[in-house]
């Protein structure tokens, strides 16, 4: 059974059909690329999986569990974490606090115990250690105690990744991780993504415009255009698919 089963998903915003009849599976341990021209519905699909949007039709199963019956804040508990296209860090918290807050579903303190200082110090220490180790892992330890506001874009993207990793995701969804990165940073990013997949036992769903990155690391590529799936398969297959070429480059004038 696949880890994530997307079945016949349709999303409408008023009269606009953002996604229709979208079906694909993500196998456990896979890096799945979701590509398509601008406005194809990639981010909409992300928002459906993280329950920001409700689909008008279709089913969504995550390791046998019906995601559409899960409230948005339980999605992380189920093991799905994501990054955002336009960064959604918490700017008035320090980097390490951002990461520690990412472990929300795995930590236990509540309002009562925290205020009465019951077990708080122990948990804080443990979380700080874990967060710092992950930051170290991603080469971010030198900014751990900085405020997020004012850090370079590429760094912020990695902080967001660290925030996901501390939650121990089963499925990690990356929304355009290469946007705004330089050429060499993109090369580094593909190593980071495959590296964390192996080290943290992840399944990754990747939305990306940077074809070099997607084709280089994905094991399965799903291509969307105008809210419909036009192709799916290995990167090489997809690249040669005439429908994909047409979506990206248009039909040759005859």
């Amino acid at each position, binding site marked *: 059974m696949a880890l994530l089963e997307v079945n016949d998903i349709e999303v409408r915003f008023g009269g606009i059909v953002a996604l229709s009849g979208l079906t694909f599976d993500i196998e456990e341990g896979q890096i799945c690329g979701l590509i398509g021209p601008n406005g194809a519905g990639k981010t909409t699909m992300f928002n459906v999986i*993280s329950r*920001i949007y409700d689909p008008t039709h279709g089913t969504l199963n995550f390791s046998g569990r019906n995601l559409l019956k899960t409230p*948005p*804040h*339980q*999605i*992380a*508990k189920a093991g799905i*974490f*994501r990054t*955002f296209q336009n960064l*959604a*860090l*918490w*700017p*008035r*918290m320090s980097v*390490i*606090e951002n990461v*520690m*807050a*990412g472990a*929300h*579903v795995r*930590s*236990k*303190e*509540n*309002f009562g115990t*925290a*205020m*009465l*200082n019951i077990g*708080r110090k122990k*948990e*804080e*220490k*443990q*979380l*700080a*250690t*874990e*967060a*710092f*180790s*992950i930051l*170290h*892992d991603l080469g971010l*330890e030198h900014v*751990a*105690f900085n405020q997020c506001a004012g850090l370079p874009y590429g760094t912020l993207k990695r902080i967001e990744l660290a*925030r996901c*990793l*501390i*939650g*121990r995701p089963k499925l990690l969804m990356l929304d355009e991780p290469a946007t705004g990165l330089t050429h060499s940073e993109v090369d580094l990013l593909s190593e980071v993504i495959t590296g964390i997949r192996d*080290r*943290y*036992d992840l399944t990754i769903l990747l939305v990306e415009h940077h074809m070099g990155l997607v084709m280089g690391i994905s094991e399965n590529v799903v291509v969307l255009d105008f809210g419909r799936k036009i192709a799916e398969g290995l990167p090489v297959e997809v690249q040669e698919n005439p429908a994909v070429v047409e979506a990206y480059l248009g039909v040759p004038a005859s």
Partner: protein
Amino acid sequence: MATAPRFQFTEGTPQYRTYKLIGYGILLLLVLVVAFAYNDTGSITLFDNDYKVSITRVTKAISFIIAILGLQVVAGFTGQLSLGQGFFFGVGAYLSAWLVSDHNWPWLLTLVVIIPTCFIFGMAFGIPALRIKGLYLALVTLGLAAILPSLILLDKLEPYTAGAAGKQTDSDLVPPGWLPLDGIVDALHKLPLVGSYFGDGDGLSSREEQRVWTFFIMTIVAVVCFKMVGNLIKSRPGRAIRAVRDNETSAAVNGIGLAYHKTMSFGVASALGGVGGMVYVAELGIASPGDFTQLLSILFIVGLVVGGVGTLSGAVIGGLVIAFVPDWASSTQNFPGVPERWLQGPTGGLILGLMLIVLTFVLPGGIVAGVRRLRARFVRVNPARPPLLTTGDPTTNALADSATVDAASVND
């Protein structure tokens, strides 16, 4: 760029502990000075103006401080602008006045009733915050604050609230007999140089003793409140509410329940408002409906902003400001360079208003932000570097296994 600060400390080192200890020592000293030097109505004279400083007013400031601390939780850290803090302040005040005068409860015991009541009310009150935001939430909460005075005056409630006359309490906090407050002030009076500031040498009357004692007790109440909120902020729920403040979408995606954290934060804030109300009545001895209007809620917001939104020390400064500055502003009759006739008459509001406007432009982050900027020139505290996960650690988890490889090779 300024040069490196003169003093640098790393968290957890003995030097840092000494630095902290000195800081707390100064605070404690301040508390003692206020308690014993201003136990009678004292005043500071500046430019021929008499600025009244009395311990009763400081105790009143403590009540505001606790209420503003509550506002820090809900508005400063959770980002929900609530103008209803005055409501809970009033509820706390009336509940304690009623329990103390009609049922002879000791003051502090009333907290057992006040905290849960205000907490539950506050949580219920937080429910609108789940649907409405910003200005609209402010309006709804302001409505609640506006209701309270008329609620107090209801005929049905008059037997409990004593209506427009105000609920009198004649019970005071009496210091225990073994505590030689009288002796302490005498000893302080005999100190060389500074002795003359401590009383007039005739010891403390029982009224003065009670004032000092009330001040001490309420200071301890405030310290406990601060400690608890401090713990909260540096913990999982504290980070969660700050995450909700900074970005609700990503908070929800990371598993933070927005509804739960908002309502809980309203609950905690309201409970603190209630505690503040208890302190207020314990000091004043009377709860009257005119004290708990919307104006009080607005005043709390003023204190919050002037002190510094989202800082704990901002609550202290904000509380002191709203307890003293309006009064001081109206006592200002002379100021160098300003024609005297300008300052005659009811200029208190004018001075306070001007001060707020100027402060907002000069110190946008509140007084605390200014103090911090100043302090950063002299002292820098470097956070302690947490250890990296290692294989030898028995608590090693799935995450550690992968992190260890790098950690070990780089670190050693």
